[in-house]
């Protein structure tokens, strides 16, 4: 795929998930990893890992995906692709002055969010089959989940501690 096709694909997928970073993962996985085979699961996870510890908008990690696929140009185009639909805000503001009732839109969005949740879980199962291939990886996964979700620790701290635990386990028992 050329950089423009990639950017256009990212734009459509980002619109479908309303610019939600995690919700975009399953769509990127199915499109670029499974269908096109031009991105590896490791690259996608790496891009998402960066996103979790990075400041700024949650979907900005598509710049990494663009970079892996087409270098700096790919990164820049991917970034433009996810920002461009923001301009729909301007006609929407004008529309809102006339129609303030958006019940239908709200109901649609609720269904979209719920579907996203199911999709993200499905995607983690399929990614996990490829990414969790050792006991060490499984332990790191559980540790990070406990720190990030249950203990609500800062993502950077969770990532650093989980990665360190992985390193230590690997050094102590390389065969795990």
């Amino acid at each position, binding site marked *: 795929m050329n950089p423009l096709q990639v950017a256009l694909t990212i734009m459509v997928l980002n619109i479908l998930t309303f610019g939600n970073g995690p919700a975009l993962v399953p769509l990127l996985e199915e499109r670029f990893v499974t269908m096109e085979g031009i991105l590896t699961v490791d690259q996608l996870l790496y891009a998402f890992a960066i996103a979790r510890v990075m400041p*700024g908008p949650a979907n900005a990690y598509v710049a990494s995906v663009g970079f892996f696929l087409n270098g700096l140009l790919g990164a820049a185009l991917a970034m433009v692709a996810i920002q461009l639909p923001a301009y729909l805000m301007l006609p929407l503001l004008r529309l809102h002055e006339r129609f303030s009732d958006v019940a239908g839109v709200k109901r649609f969005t609720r269904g979209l969010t719920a579907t996203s949740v199911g999709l993200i879980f499905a995607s983690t199962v399929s990614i996990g089959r490829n990414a969790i291939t050792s006991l060490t990886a499984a332990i790191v996964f559980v540790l*990070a989940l406990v720190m990030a979700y249950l203990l609500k620790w800062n993502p950077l701290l969770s990532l650093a501690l989980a990665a360190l635990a992985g390193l230590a386990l690997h050094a102590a028992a390389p065969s795990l």
Partner: protein
Amino acid sequence: MKPIGLKDLFVIFLKAGLAFGGGLGILAVLEEEFVTKRQALTREEFLTDYALGRIVPSGTMSALAADFGARFGGFPGSVIALTAMVLPAFTLSVSLSAAYVYLAGTPVLALLPLTILPAALAFIVAAALRLGRDITIPSVEALLAAAAFIGSLVFRISPALLLVGGGIVSMVILAFTERAENPA
């Protein structure tokens, strides 16, 4: 109230782009700058635009950047606001991805599947759990989430199709149930 120029827009949105915590971190900076500090927007204006921004399919903060940028600086203002907001994340993403490509084939990269990658997967699960926290069981939403999970994993239905279908099904069912709950 002092007028907000293009330079101010750049500084404000660069600051927002440096905020941690995704959308809410950015929102906090924008509220502080536009409402509290400069009083360029009332709280009500800010909240209405935020609600509308949630409908825009680009990410709520990008919608607000286009909105406030255009409001205070016309079209150039919106471009400056959007660019400044994504600049820190863009620079970091590209440099860290370049490091990944540069390290390919070295022992350092072989360690990633044992360290950062499983942790990243855990972050995705945590995000899904947080997004799903408001979903009660049983409800239309829980049903849609389960259907999407099975449809994607077992039947390999395209995520895009599931999303649009989920939105439409929810729009129809909720329209009926809400009408039954609050008869006009």
